[in-house]
């Protein structure tokens, strides 16, 4: 019963173009969403987040869009750089809950070609 899904295991993009990574969720109680980036042999690092009261959050080259009615979020990276090549995990939580339990998707491997 996977509550957070990333249906694209991999994505290849040319340097300078836009990368769009997608994530779907099933639990309507989720109200906070995060993207993490992971390089090989390292732990995930926080990238950007969005609360369910917003539909967009931007931080430099990274923008996260949230469509609550579709239970879908996406991460846009513009322009993509070779150093962005990593696995990107989407995560969700019930922020109003007593615990800080993050539910992760299975990740999308992004390869940015020079």
């Amino acid at each position, binding site marked *: 019963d996977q509550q957070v899904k990333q249906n694209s295991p991999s994505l290849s993009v040319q340097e300078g173009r836009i990368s769009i990574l997608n994530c779907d969720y099933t639990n309507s109680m989720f109200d906070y969403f995060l993207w993490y980036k992971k390089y090989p042999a390292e732990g995930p690092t926080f990238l950007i*987040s969005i609360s369910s009261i917003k539909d967009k959050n931007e931080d430099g080259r990274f923008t996260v869009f949230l469509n609550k009615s579709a239970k879908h979020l996406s991460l846009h990276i513009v322009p993509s750089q070779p150093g962005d090549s990593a696995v990107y995990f989407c995560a969700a939580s019930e922020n109003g809950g007593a615990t*800080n339990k993050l539910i992760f998707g299975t990740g999308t491997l992004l390869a940015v070609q020079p």
Partner: protein
Amino acid sequence: DTAVSQTPKYLVTQMGNDKSIKCEQNLGHDTMYWYKQDSKKFLKIMFSYNNKELIINETVPNRFSPKSPDKAHLNLHINSLELGDSAVYFCASSGPGGNEQFFGPGTRLTVL
């Protein structure tokens, strides 16, 4: 100035053995976590401690026992290791609010 550190980075052991993984954070966070990433790359929470108190305990076998001697440390002890325990184990910590979690580099456990 590592924020969240884990030791060891790699652990290879035989079935039936008992092993421990240590985690330390120097961020001053009150909450610490253990996650398991299995062979399918699925990252799933196992435990969470807040100020040395257990607050999340997912359906993890009793062979796994976390211990938090103080709020900067959360160790994971595994008894009677099984083949299916082979995975990468990540420690994490978070401050107030808790959603933004900081992860350690992971410990790759291989059970032979």
